[in-house]
């Protein structure tokens, strides 16, 4: 198992929920039942997707990690292995889900 990288989100409460396991970019990660995908990804790391375009000195591929957390900015879309694309902040993480932060197509 890969060691857990630094997460962006920090859990402050509601930590007694049932743990679930999902795969993020091929690596098994732990989250809690009731987490959104955004939370599940961000307690385990800092990048949710890569921007398609550059600008601001950044090249295309710059990391993004959502912004509004309420389904408005659309900066948290991720792919699931079954081909679906979902908005991470408005989709609940489920046990066994396989998530890809890079756009597979």
């Amino acid at each position, binding site marked *: 198992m890969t060691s857990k990288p630094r997460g*962006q989100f*920090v859990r*402050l409460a509601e930590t007694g929920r049932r743990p679930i396991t999902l795969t993020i970019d091929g690596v098994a990660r732990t989250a809690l039942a009731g987490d959104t995908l955004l939370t599940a990804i961000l307690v385990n790391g800092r990048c949710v997707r890569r921007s398609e375009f550059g600008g*601001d000195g950044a090249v295309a591929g710059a990391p993004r*990690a959502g*912004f*509004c957390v309420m389904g408005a900015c*659309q*900066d948290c879309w991720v792919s699931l292995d079954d081909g679906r694309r979902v908005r991470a902040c*408005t989709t609940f993480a489920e046990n066994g889900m396989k998530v890809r932060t890079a756009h597979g197509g």
Partner: protein
Amino acid sequence: MVAERLPPVIVGAGPAGTRAAETLVHAGLRPIVIDEAPSNGGQIYRRQPSGFTRPGKALYGFEASRAAALFGAFDRLAGSIDHRPNTLVWSIRPGSIGAGLMHLVSSERANALPFDQVIFATGATDRVIPLPGWTLPGVFTLGGAQVALKYQGCAIGQRTAFVGTGPLLYLVAYQYAKAGAKVAAVLDTAPLSAKLRALPGLSANAQATARGLYYLFWLRSRGVPVQLGIHPLAIEGRDGVTAIAWRDPHGGSHATPCDAVAMGYGLRSETQLADLAEVPFAWDALHRQWLPTRDAAGRTPVAGIYLAGDGGGALGADAAELAGERVALALLQDRGAADNGRSHADRIAAINRRLDRYLRFRRGLERAFPFPAHLAGDLADETLLCRCEGITAGEVRRAVREFGAHEINRAKAFSRVGMGRCQGRMCGPAAAEIVAGALGVPIEQAGRLRAQAPVKPLPMAAVLDDAAASARHG
């Protein structure tokens, strides 16, 4: 026999939508209540997912009893309303002749819903001003920071800096500190002088003002640096936030180390559906936004289309509840529903007297926390403005200066600003300031970014569920 009318539809199950539904149910109707969220409550009273156990007091603080009252009201409506959670209204066409048509999608099932009266109670989202580094992981809106905490029990980082202006800036910083998060600083672009000048207006809602002051002093007393009149410079970091750089009113530069930033400059109404419904818009100087026009009760000039709550100008949750009740009364009047007890007109007038106070308070807030439009207008050319399409402020200026765009939609056509997944929700207000600046005209002459369907991304796998639509309305 008189043809049966279609049930009224309410889009949004926040404070405004809930009170509207309640009023309609009391009048004997069975409204359809649609919300893209999994449960009712709207933004401020967003309900945490099942399995979460924090009590209302921990989630909603001073507003806990109001939240409980609103949830109670909604729960009592179960069975009397047709509640459709997890359902997005992505397009609407007004019924010039006969019924209008609304387009819904729930996961991958699309639905067409005929209607003849609809209330938009669609709320608001954060108004943001870009700055260098604002797309880095760890930067979220103030509202987003609050959702992470209320809805997920998480802080957006180990050390969060709060930047922007408005009452939410202090509220969310306070909620973070209270929940045990480390607040690196509260950086308010509004100067102290603005707040002092605003006091007379703020007295219209003494309770809310007192709470605001309480948050401020609470934070200061806990050693949280609170800086007024600052100028944000940049968010620093490579793969994530490491600091926020800002200038104090005396010109001194600072960099506050942090790994997360929550930013926001007040709210902007979600008006896309009103636009698609062909409601005329007017420039609203108070909200510095184009808003759908409506009469004193919330009727728009388009027959059958009504507005309530923050979706028609952000006045806050208490005002949204009142506006929800008021607009439902107007809808009932138009439906020719019999008055029970006091006439609808009297009740609307009484509510309007109460709402007046919120409007005065809102004016006071605007004075205390003025929107720093210059920060948007003066964005450096190389700063990324549209996070969806990767468009810089300079590209928008070029659309105006070199390609001759004379208003924002033309600037969009040339530069792609506002053309991405979010449809300009995030960049729109700043883009308008930039266009106005490049044209050298007041903001209201920069034009209004027109909404286009779908109001949010629509899955291509969506199939129109004809069978379901005709079964329900056949």
